[in-house]
């Protein structure tokens, strides 16, 4: 007597991305906190000192948020026009910001009124930064110039007029007080040395440069412009290392993770991509609701802050250690040890006669019903909410098994409105899935055959049938489009392939040589 063979549930290859260490790391953030600002958020900068407040530049204001508060702890409003690029000094005491009105303002973080106003630019200043000796300020403006200012005297030290278009990004070296780099809409990056009067290195990015980033070692420079992110080796004289093209709209912002092993880029295409800095492959991807203008990571990656064009600031905090543990602990609740050990730890004595217990076959609920030939009940069990939603392959496998047994019609028939609605719901959810379509199409046809006489009696069922019809029509259109694309591709491939003359003589010779080789081998043996 053979035992009952349970229903085979087909194993489908897992769709979607693979779970890697990176996925786990970057998924370990809480649901985002969203704050509405007054306008598009153009810059976010974290304070280098604890408690790591961050300055958010949006429209005519700069807000400073604490690490966990959702209300700004400080606001700077003394701007006549749109503010740009609010950045902290390395001691976290001062903040500098450019403005549309070409005036650069320096603030004390605890004060309200600007400590200094640097006037000299003729157009909007989009980029400001402190040099590493903390006494000077770098600014870049739409008047094609970048300037160095002395903080104590509020005087202009030098002006560099080498760019031929707007300067929209720049960064100062953290190691050398004299070095700074600017990127411009004239597609170039220029490295300046304050000790010289002109740029010492020029690199061509190829697109208007939007953002610049220096590696902590300052040997590598990353620039973003257009859809490209490019990495340059400064020590080799500005040699391009890599060019990444993973976004499909302009990349607006760059950022390094705290460890320096991951590079993040944000783009107008609403994605933030995370790259591995050793092989520059995308390891993770975040989606946002709107085009992203600014991005910043808190020290130790404690939070990701993203500013968007729709003036929404999104803050994601990292889950604390015990929080993430708690969740996994809940999933792993199992019966206690005692339950398993019960009766198992009895050691048989020497003259005990051991009666071997027949191995009990464990069957799933639907298999138990199938074993008893209760086809309707088997289908009901397979359509239970959890199975239906989480493991549709089980439901499909049961439907397939019923079809194989020739009893699918019996199982589908005789259902009330609720049962039928559930069935139709499942069909609507899964019928267009290519893995399940062959089975479910048969089932759908049977349902229509069986229940066509009751159409019009229940509004719920009717609505679902209409939805199903709509879905199928859409699917048919979609398939037709796909076929068209396939046809186009075929013609393109066919035309792109070089016409090769079939040289019969040549191929013959080849066969001959192969065969003679083979013969020699045989002789050798």
């Amino acid at each position, binding site marked *: 007597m053979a035992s009952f063979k349970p229903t085979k549930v087909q194993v489908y290859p897992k769709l979607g991305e693979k779970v890697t260490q990176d996925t786990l790391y970057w998924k370990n953030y809480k649901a985002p906190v969203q704050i509405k600002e007054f306008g598009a958020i153009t810059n976010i900068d974290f304070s280098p000192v604890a408690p790591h407040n961050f300055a958010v530049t949006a429209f005519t204001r700069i807000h400073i948020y604490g690490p966990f508060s959702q209300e700004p702890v400080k606001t700077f409003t003394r701007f006549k026009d749109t503010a740009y690029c609010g950045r902290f000094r390395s001691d976290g005491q001062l903040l500098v910001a450019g403005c549309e009105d070409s005036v650069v303002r320096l603030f004390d973080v605890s004060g309200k009124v600007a400590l200094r106003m640097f006037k000299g630019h003729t157009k909007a200043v989009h980029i400001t930064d402190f040099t590493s000796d903390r006494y000077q300020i770098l600014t870049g403006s739409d008047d094609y110039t970048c300037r160095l200012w002395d903080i104590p005297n509020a005087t202009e030290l030098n002006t560099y007029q080498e760019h031929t278009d707007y300067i929209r990004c720049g960064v100062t070296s953290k190691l050398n007080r004299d070095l700074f780099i600017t990127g411009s809409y004239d597609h170039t990056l220029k490295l300046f040395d304050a000790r010289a009067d002109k740029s010492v290195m020029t690199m061509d990015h190829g697109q208007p440069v939007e953002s610049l980033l220096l590696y902590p070692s300052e040997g590598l420079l990353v620039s973003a412009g257009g859809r490209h992110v490019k990495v340059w080796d400064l020590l080799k004289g500005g040699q391009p290392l890599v060019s990444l093209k993973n976004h499909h709209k302009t990349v607006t912002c760059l950022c390094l993770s705290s460890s320096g092993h991951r590079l993040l880029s944000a783009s107008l295409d609403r994605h933030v991509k995370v790259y591995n800095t050793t092989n520059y492959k995308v390891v993770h991807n975040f989606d946002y609701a709107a085009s992203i203008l600014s991005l910043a990571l808190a020290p130790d990656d404690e939070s990701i802050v993203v500013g968007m064009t729709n003036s929404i600031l999104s803050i994601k905090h990292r889950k604390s250690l015990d929080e993430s543990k708690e969740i996994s602990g809940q999933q792993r609740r199992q019966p206690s040890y005692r339950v398993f050990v019960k009766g198992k730890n009895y050691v048989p004595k020497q003259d005990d006669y051991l009666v071997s217990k027949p191995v009990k076959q464990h069957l799933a609920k639907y298999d138990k019903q199938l074993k008893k030939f209760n086809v309707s009940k088997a289908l009901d069990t397979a359509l239970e909410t959890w199975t239906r939603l989480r493991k549709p392959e089980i439901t499909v496998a049961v439907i397939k098994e019923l079809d*194989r047994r020739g009893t699918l019609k019996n199982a589908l028939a005789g259902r009330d409105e609720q049962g039928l609605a559930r069935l139709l719901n499942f069909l609507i959810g899964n019928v267009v899935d290519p893995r399940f379509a062959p089975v479910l199409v048969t089932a759908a046809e049977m349902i229509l055959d069986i229940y066509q006489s009751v159409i019009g009696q229940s509004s719920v069922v009717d609505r679902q049938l209409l939805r199903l019809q709509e879905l199928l029509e859409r699917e048919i259109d979609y398939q037709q489009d796909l076929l068209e694309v396939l046809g186009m591709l075929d013609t393109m491939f066919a035309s792109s392939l070089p016409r090769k003359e079939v040289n019969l003589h040549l191929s013959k010779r080849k066969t001959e040589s192969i065969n003679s080789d083979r013969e020699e081998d*045989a002789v050798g043996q």
Partner: protein
Amino acid sequence: MVEHGDIRVVHRGGSKINFREPVITHDSRYLLCASGECVKVFSTSTEECIHDLRGHTGLVTGVLLKPSNHLQVYSCSADGTVRLWDYTDGILIKTYVIGCPVYSICASANHEGVIFIVTPMLSDKRSDLFQLVAVDLPQSGDQLVEARELSAVLSDVSSNPAAIVFGRGGEYIASANGLHLEVYFFKKQKSYRFSLKEDNKKGGKNTVTCVACHPKDDCIATGHEDGKIRLWRNFNHKKEYTYSTLHWHHSAVSSLCFTPEGTNLLSGGMESVLVQWRYNQESERDFLPRLGSAITHITVSPDGALFCTSHSDNKITIIQSCVKVSAVIQGLVKGESVRTDMMVDPRSKSLVLNGKPGHLQFYSLPRDKLLYNLDIVQQEYIHESGLEQFEVVKAAFDASGSWLATVEERKQKDAELELNLKLWAFDEQTQSFVLNTTISAPHEARITAMCFCHATDSQTTMLVSTSKDGHFKAWQLGAPAHTEADEGPSWSCDFVGAYHGLVPECCCFSADGSLLAVSFQEVVTVWSPASWELLTTLSQPPKAVRDLCFGRLSCSKYLLGTTANNLLCCWNLLTCSLEWSTSMDISLLLADPLTENMAAFCCQAGSTDLFVFKPSEPRPVFSQKAVCSGKVTRAVFAPREEMLESCEESSQWLNHSQLYFLTPYMDLMTFTTKAEEDRLMASSKQLVIDDSVAMTPFYLLLGKHRQQEDADPLSGLSAERRPLPQCSVAIKELLQTPAHVLPSTSFLCSMFVQSLLISVTNGREETKHVEEEMESEKEEEDSEGEMESSTQRPEQASLGGQAAPALTKAQLRELKRVKKLDHSWFPGLLHS
């Protein structure tokens, strides 16, 4: 024909054992069943076939224990004889010649010396009318007796043996035919006939399929086509009979049987569930489900301890009182057709073909025994007629037997074709195949051919499948997946090839795996599997290619193909041209994997001819006309376990491997030589295992030892006839004679030493030759020797004396004297 006279076509195994109801002997130790032209005796405990009762020249149609002697058994056959056998020793006791085909047999203890047989109606020659005839068996001592005293009992009976049965104590006999039940009372010499309506209201069919009588009670049970069982009572009146109905089966009841005490009724049918009904409490039922396949016969042992069911898949199951299955005797499963090719498993050297639905069977050819069934589909089989099931349609082994590829398909009327390609790895630990990869829908249409690359030295294993969708695909064993460590390597598609949108029909790898030939209708394409480059195309005939075969060994430069317009073509791959072609309607072409030989089955005028040839030679190695009628489509070369040493030119092709083929009637046939048959005969006698002791490993150890002991005196026995120059005989004699009857040691010593010396005999070569001849004689005598050994022991001493030619004549005389001496005084000593 004349010159190949010594090569014969013979049946080789795989005969049906479920044709008629098996019989369990009174001591429940043996099971007898009709199997083709012989009756097979199986042991119920070990499942081994103990011996065949051979003698009938037609199909055996019934087996019956002799009611008066339980150690003898009747068998009836379509050759018109009834034979009486002693089944324990396998001896034919008597043959009764009836003169017309016998379809079934029954007897009762109440009717001494009479058996009842079913024969065709003598009056008219139409074969669909049968009668029940009582035969008075003549009491004569002759082996061959003509039984002429026939008296008709009932006319118009069914030829189905399940439809005629004796009632309580043999007082009446019940017979069912169609819708009628007829009961004949012997005392009253009167028969009653009860009829049922053709169809009852619900449309069920009332045709009676089987009958059983209660052993103690006046009750007849009939099984019907619609699954009902009727219990008839009070049937000794024409009018006042009653019946009650039991219904569980959903399709026809194929067998019914009461237990010997009459407490239970057993029934079985297509559902493959054995149902046990309590007599008089019919609402209580026991079930033994999932017995494998449809039940055809049910038998109960006379003591009621064993049940036995025959199944439609050529299987007999022995069940211990409806609790558990204790033994399964499984023959070669033969469906209506073999969908997969016949193959030989390179590991077990067993024949592999599809058997039970969704299974592959591994059948050991030398042992004529089914080794095991491999479940390919792994789904619960639903026993219902008219249901489309998954079927195994293709299978292939790789060269070493470590991979098996199978294709299963299911086609429903209006649904898509369901196709699965499964790859099985051989697991050394469990010694069976384990599923490695399942590829669902490997192709969009039916797979036409499939083959593994047979190169033994290649690193990767490759499988090529061709399909009706116009593509051929190469599948390769990939490296272990890097994601999870516990997953082993799995198979994936390596290459998809097509040629001008034509449908590929067959594919073949060359012996070294460097070339792949795929035929696309009339074009043969040759590819290099290493680079997947189309090397050349060969297209000679204007018709589709049916079979492709690469030559082997010295003929590896040839590619052979057969076409639909009756051509056999041989291409030379070095010149890419046609070497030769001949016009033949070849239904099957296959290559011997071990030699250059190719076999072609050629269909001509309703029968099949066989040609065995080498592609390089113009003359065939062997040819035989009309090996069987009809078209042979399945055949295989099975490598021999030990090579034959035949030097005759015509039979040399059988030295390395044996050719098996299936006739259109699903008989497994093979070619054999005379010498081989003799050898087989001798060895089969040796193989008989006495099953009085269970076959434990301990028994095997000890039993062998005992057999050797038994065989020892034989050497003495045979020594009588030949001068064997073996000194050991003398020593043996010395050692076997009881010590207290031997002369003093000093007297024997010189003789003993002499016997150890190598004597200078002139006829050494000659004797050796004789020895070889005698070897076979000895084997033949084994069985007799075993019986007689006990009686012969005393004589041996005297015989052995003569059997020591190494001794000088004087010594011989001396020894004889000693022997004579002890025989004379030894009894005297005892009596005194």
